[in-house]
Every structure is written in C-alpha cells, then in structure tokens.
C-alpha cells in the first residue's frame, strides 16, 4: 500500500518526489485507535486512542471507540515503533575505513545511504528507529548513528542521535581479510591483525594510547578523543561478540580499564549469540546485550551456537536486553518475528516488547524521543492485525514522526 503509493509517486511525479518523497505537505495529525495499546513503559490500555499531532504523541486515552474520520486509524493492537540496534542496512563496505584497523573518528553518518530500498522494508516491518554502524572489518570501526527508517531523504534530517556509540568488533571478522606480509607488503591488509589475539591487542592498545594522550597534544591521534569519551563513560562502546570467548574478551577488557583506573566503559555486546554460555560472567559485567537474529538451527555466524532461550536467560540475569534482525528483509525473520522467537524461548510478552522498543532506546540514549508511547515523544507507532509477535499476526500500519509509512486502511 505505502509501496504502491510511493512507487506511483516515484514513477510519476519525478518533480514532487525529487524534493524528497515527503516534501509535499501531508497529514501528520492522527487519532490512532487500538483495542489494546501497549505503551511499553506504562500499562496496557484497553480500547485506547493515541492522539498524534505535528509528528509528536499528544497522549493516550482509554476506553474509547475510535472514529473513522480521514484522520483516524484502527488496529487490533498498537505498540511503539520498534528499535533495532543492529540493523546492518544502508552502510556497506564503502562505509568502512579499512586503511586503519582502529578508526574511532570515522563517522558512519557520512556513508549512510538513505536511498537503500531496504530502509523501506525496515520501516514497513515496524522498525522505526535504527542504529547504523559500518560493517565490522575494523577492530574499531567508528561512530554509529541513530536514524529514523523513513522520512526526509537526507541523513541529517533523519538523524535521531549522531555519533551515538563507538563501534568495535572482536572475533574473526576484523581479521579475516588480513594476512601476514610475505616479502613486500602490497596492501595495508598485511599490516593488520590476523588472529583474535591480534584483534584483542589492537583494541586494548587503542584505549591505552588514548588514555596516554589525555591532555598531551603530541600524543593525541585521530580518534583519541572519541576513545576517551568511551573511557569517561559519556558514549557507550558497542562491540560485536558472537562467541563466548569474544564476550569474555570484551568483559575482561572492561574490567581491565576499570582496575587500571582508566575509566568505566559502558559496554553493549552486539550479536552476542553465546550470551547463554557463561551467565555468571555476563551478570558480573552488567553489560547490555543485543542478541542476533535467532538462527533456525542454532548454528550461526563465527561458528557460534545460539539457543532459543537466550533472550529469557539474559533477561532473567537482569541485564538490559535488546533483540535485532540484522536488517533481514525476509518476512519470516524480521524484528517482530525475533520477538516471537524470544517468547517461544520463554521470554514474557512484556519483556519481549521492551526488548524491541524502550530497552534498545535506553542503551543508546534516545529513550527521551522514542521507544514508548508517552505524551511528547516522537509519533513512531506500529499497528498490528492481532497480538503483536504472534506468528499469526502482522504489522498492518506504521507511523513515523506522524507520517503514515504503511497505511492500515484497505486500498479501495
């Protein structure tokens, strides 16, 4: 439906859509009725109506009927727009600065392609906010940016929070392209780590150097400030850690920084497939965990194995938990399905809902704008055909900043 609309525009009014599909004045005030309105932070509101004006949520009132005017929408359920911290869309190999293995100063925002059609897929699947980081070919790849998945066609216009996290990676990925220098090195891959040990060392070295550069200009280097912001705890450090030994590396790193008195990094473990393996260690670290999409047969990237009850387990440890779909366009693997899998693994509905909305929003510090249905927050809402996350229900409507991205109303 929205695709239909947009395609028609795109095919037809080049002029109009050239100024950005959303340039022309369009309706941004809505009365959105849901038999159940799940606020994610507060309680469930029966027969609630969410008032939207000027792209913001004005409030929710329960026990309503819901109208059928041109500005009213209806659905079986309404939830906040979903947040994916590991969306892996819109930033390809062209966004990784591979001439250095540590590039903390690189801003992914500069490389984001807002025209990537996968954004539309994300938006229509109910993911309204996403953290974009460059693919993990570097040990420290740079600064991730939090964006809306639909809206004006420009990165800045879509940005919710620039440079939200410093992104790094442990494990085999940052090193797999690299090779020892035989004879004369003909490219910079020969100067970069080729093993987990090398990667781990690069990571620690970077932060020690940054700490050493504190207050001394001659020891400063590109990105030392960004690295220090992590030590000072003002910006979270998000590390890709598929396997249990990568998770260890990350946690030991954090503890080392603390014991050495260099600072208190706020860890977000991304793609932590084997978070279930060493619960005590994980609990001790207090790190936030972003789970990768559930691999249907357990086996997943970097030779890790993820269990169906991982989400429940992390949640029961009392750690911040977020789910992610890695931008999969497959309707059977999108973020709402991931929440379903988590529930299949024993996670409660409430926890599942938070793990795809407010929890990730908090991790990257955008919970003041998105992640729950509260007056004053961005009008990012998802309308459902039935109980959210149930296999037998689906996303029928999506509103982002008050703009209708997927229209729940029948086309005729």
């Amino acid at each position: 439906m929205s695709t239909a609309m947009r395609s028609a525009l795109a095919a037809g009014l080049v002029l109009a859509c050239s100024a950005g599909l959303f340039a022309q004045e369009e309706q941004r005030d809505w009365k959105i009725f849901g038999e159940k309105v799940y606020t994610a932070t507060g309680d469930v509101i029966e027969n609630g109506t969410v008032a939207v004006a000027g792209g913001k949520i004005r409030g929710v009132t329960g026990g309503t009927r819901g109208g059928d005017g041109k500005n009213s929408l209806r659905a079986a359920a309404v939830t906040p727009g979903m947040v994916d911290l590991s969306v892996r869309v819109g930033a390809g190999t062209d966004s990784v600065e591979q001439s250095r293995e540590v590039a903390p100063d690189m801003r992914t925002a500069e490389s984001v392609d807002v025209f990537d059609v996968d954004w539309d897929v994300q938006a229509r699947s109910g993911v309204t906010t996403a953290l974009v980081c460059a693919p993990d070919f570097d040990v420290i790849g740079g600064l991730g940016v939090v964006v809306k998945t639909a809206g004006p066609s420009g990165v800045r216009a879509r940005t919710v929070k620039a440079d939200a996290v410093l992104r790094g990676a442990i494990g085999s990925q940052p090193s797999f392209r690299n090779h020892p220098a035989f004879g004369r090195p003909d490219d910079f891959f020969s100067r970069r780590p080729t093993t987990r040990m090398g990667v781990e060392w690069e990571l620690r070295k970077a932060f020690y150097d940054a700490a050493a550069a504190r207050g001394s200009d001659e020891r400063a280097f590109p990105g030392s400030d960004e690295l220090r912001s992590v030590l000072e705890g003002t910006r979270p450090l998000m590390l890709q850690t598929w396997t249990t030994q990568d998770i260890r590396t990350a946690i030991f790193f954090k503890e080392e920084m603390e014991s050495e008195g260099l600072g208190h990094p706020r860890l977000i473990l991304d793609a932590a497939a084997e978070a279930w393996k060493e619960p005590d260690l994980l609990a001790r670290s207090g790190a936030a965990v972003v789970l990768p999409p559930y691999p249907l047969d357990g086996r997943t990237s970097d030779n890790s194995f993820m269990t169906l009850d991982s989400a429940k387990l992390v949640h029961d440890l009392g750690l911040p938990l977020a789910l992610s779909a890695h931008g999969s366009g497959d309707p059977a693997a999108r973020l709402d399905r991931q929440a379903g899998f988590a529930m299949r693994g024993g996670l409660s509905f409430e926890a599942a809902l938070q793990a795809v909305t407010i929890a990730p929003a908090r991790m990257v510090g955008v919970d003041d704008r998105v992640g729950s249905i509260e007056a004053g927050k961005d009008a990012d809402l998802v309308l459902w055909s039935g109980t959210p996350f149930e296999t037998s229900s689906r996303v029928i409507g999506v509103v982002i900043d008050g703009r209708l991205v997927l229209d729940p109303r029948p086309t005729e």
Partner: protein
Amino acid sequence: MLTLASLVTLALGPVLAGPLPSATGSREAEAPAVLFVRAERVYVRPGEVIDNGAVLVRDGRIVAVGRDLVAPEGARKLSGKVVCAGFVDAWSSFGLDAGSADDQRTSPATRTVDALNEYVDPRLRLEVLGAGVTAARLNAGSSSREGGVGALVRNRPEPGADAVLLGDCCVAASVGLTREGRGRDVFDSLGEVDKLVGSIADGLNYLRDKNDYKVDLEEWRKAITEKEAELEKDFKKAKKDREKDEKEAEEKGKEYKPKKYKEDKKPSPPRYDEDKEVMARVANGELPLVVQVHRCAELRSLLEGTERFDRLRLVIAGGSEAMDVADELAERDIPVIVWPAPLGRPRPDEFEDADLGLAGRLEAAGVTVLLGTGGQAGASRDLPLLAALAVGHGLTRRQALAALTTDAAATLDVGDRIGSLETGKDADLLILDGEPLASSTRITHVISHGDLVVGQ
C-alpha cells in the same frame, strides 16, 4: 491484495509523468470497437499520401481509408495532422526472455514463441508503444550460430492471444561475431559460414529425401498390391502345390520345406530431425533466413555459398561492411537490417567499420534497407530516433519510413497484416502532430489492433 492494487496504480505512473503520450490502462483498451481517425495527411504507405483523409477502424481492422469518409454512429472520433502505420523494429529483443535471446546453444528448431515474456512491466511496454513501435521481430538465440525460429510480435500493454502476429517469421543465424571475447579469426568465421551453408544444404537434402521417399513408397505400394493380387489369384494353385509337396515329402520321409518367399523391401522414411525440418523450410524459401554478418570476407563467402539455393530468401542483419557487396545484394534482392546506432570505441571487430551512413549508402546502391535496434533490450523505444539519425546521415525519409513499415512487414511475411493503411489490414497505427521521424513531432495516439492504447 497489496500489490495487485499497487500494480494498477503503477500502471498509471507514466500518465502523470507527462513527457510520454499519456497511457491509458487496459480499461480504455477495450474501448469502442469502432474508431474514426481523420488527419490532414494519411500515409497509406510511404509515397502514397491522402490529404485530409480518414481511416475507419472496426473490430481491430481497417475497414475503410479515403478522402470523403463519414464517421458512423457511435464511432470514437480521433484526429491529428498525420496518421501512419505503426513502426516495426526488425531487430529487437523487447518482450523476449533475456536468457533465451542471448542463448548460444539454440538450434533451428528452437521456438521464440516459447520464450516470450508476458510479464514485462506494462509501463515499459507503454514507453515503447508511446514512441510508435507497435511490433517487433524477436529471435531466440539471435546472436547464436544457429538461432531459432523468430517471431513477429505485436507490442501490447497486456499481451493477449493476438500478440503474436507470426510465430515463424524467419530463422536466425550469425557468423563471424566476437564470441566469448574471441574476436577476428578468419578461419573460425569462414568455418561458421560453411557450417551454415551446410545446414541449408542438409535441409534441402532432407526435403529431397522426403519427396523421394513418398515416390518410392508409392511405387512399392503399387508393386506390392499387384503382387498381392497375383498371390490371391494363385492361392488355390499354391495350396494344391503345397499339399502335393507335403505329400511327396512325407512319402520320401523327408521333412517338408515351404518355398522361400521373397519381396522387395519396403522403403524407409528419412530419420525425423526437428532441425532439418526447419532448415528444409528455409531452403525451400518458406521462411526467410536472417543472418547477422558484418565483415566483407564472411559476407562474400556467404553470398557465394548460398548462390545455388535459388529459393532461399536471405536477409542480412548488421552488415557493417555490406557496401563491399552492395551490388550483389541489390541484384539478388537481399534486404539488409541496419542498426543505426552511434558506436564508440573500442568496439568488437565485426563493428570496426560500422557507421551511421551505411543505411543511406545501401539505399543509394539499390539495396532494400530495414532498420532495427540490434536486439538491445529496451532500445526499441528509441528506434524512431535511430531512424532519424540514419536519415541525418543520408537515408531518404521515404525509405526510412518504408523500412519501419511496409518493407519490414513484407520481408517478414506479415505484409498482408500490417505495415500500411489499407482496407483489410490490422489497425496498428499512429496519430502524430507532424511529419513522421521529425524529432519535433509528437505521437499523440497509438492504436494497436484497433485498441487505443496510448492517448485520450
């Protein structure tokens, strides 16, 4: 249905787009069965123009053309400066499955009609229709040594039963092309010519064998029926003899041996071969043979090799160096399908000497020139522009128009269906606001098989 709906919306896209003549969806396509088109100049055929004439279309056909026609009751009236027949792209791949068009492993029996893609986006079809190209020659394996049987296909917003004008309008072949990066190799390419000539010869022999078989079989039948009658007649006697012999044998205590029966062996038919079946039709002149060939060497040996097939209807496609053999082409009345596109460098060997002046020079030498878009997907839309470019480089307007209409239709055996505005022909026609092929001219309406598919 999310997308069913969306597709409808999409189909309307170009309407809003403006530049192309606005497209009418399938709904209007089924509009009135009777159309009455009046124009200041009616191009019945290139060189034959009726001033202030009209064309009457009923049920997909042209039922009247003339100066003083009156519109019948309820006829949909249309008018414009010029009306002419829809253009035919004599060398296209629009609407043909890409894999089949480029397939190098085809054989003469491969059928293009098996590879028509009914699901080309209607908007793309309307783009091409809007440019005035209402039909095209498509060929599976068009650049393969042995291409398949080509089809003359009408371009419709939604292809229906009437899309295929002629399912077997030609057989394609090619010699001396750069294949898998292998460029000019005289022996390769001449070898290819020999192979092609050989398979025409095979076709001819196959045809002969079949006829011979018919004759032999007839004779044999005749002989055998006579023999049988004989035997019937002599049966009583034979039976007596047998009984006699049997008795004798018994007396002699010998074992009876019946007389050995002999008869002429029944002639056996030639082994069925689907490819030879097709080449037989080619050799017999039932199907034109369209050969893509460019260099002078291959052209010469091809002409030489095919000289002996007096019924063969040869058509050259490409012919970058065709000027070297222009006289013979003219004399043997072999048309050339020219692809008048500006080619840059570097380019494949066979195109080394291709230039936009070719069409004009061939015409001057008395060769029938057709025009095509070289089988480049999507290029059909730009055929009129390429034709104009050819005119800019020496082709006469009249021949350019003929190449796009009458001559193309005639060469590809659909002259009785399309190509000119004559009573009885299918109504594939264009209404324009100026002279055909002038770049400033806009096509305001396109009528395909009597349906108004472009324009209001």
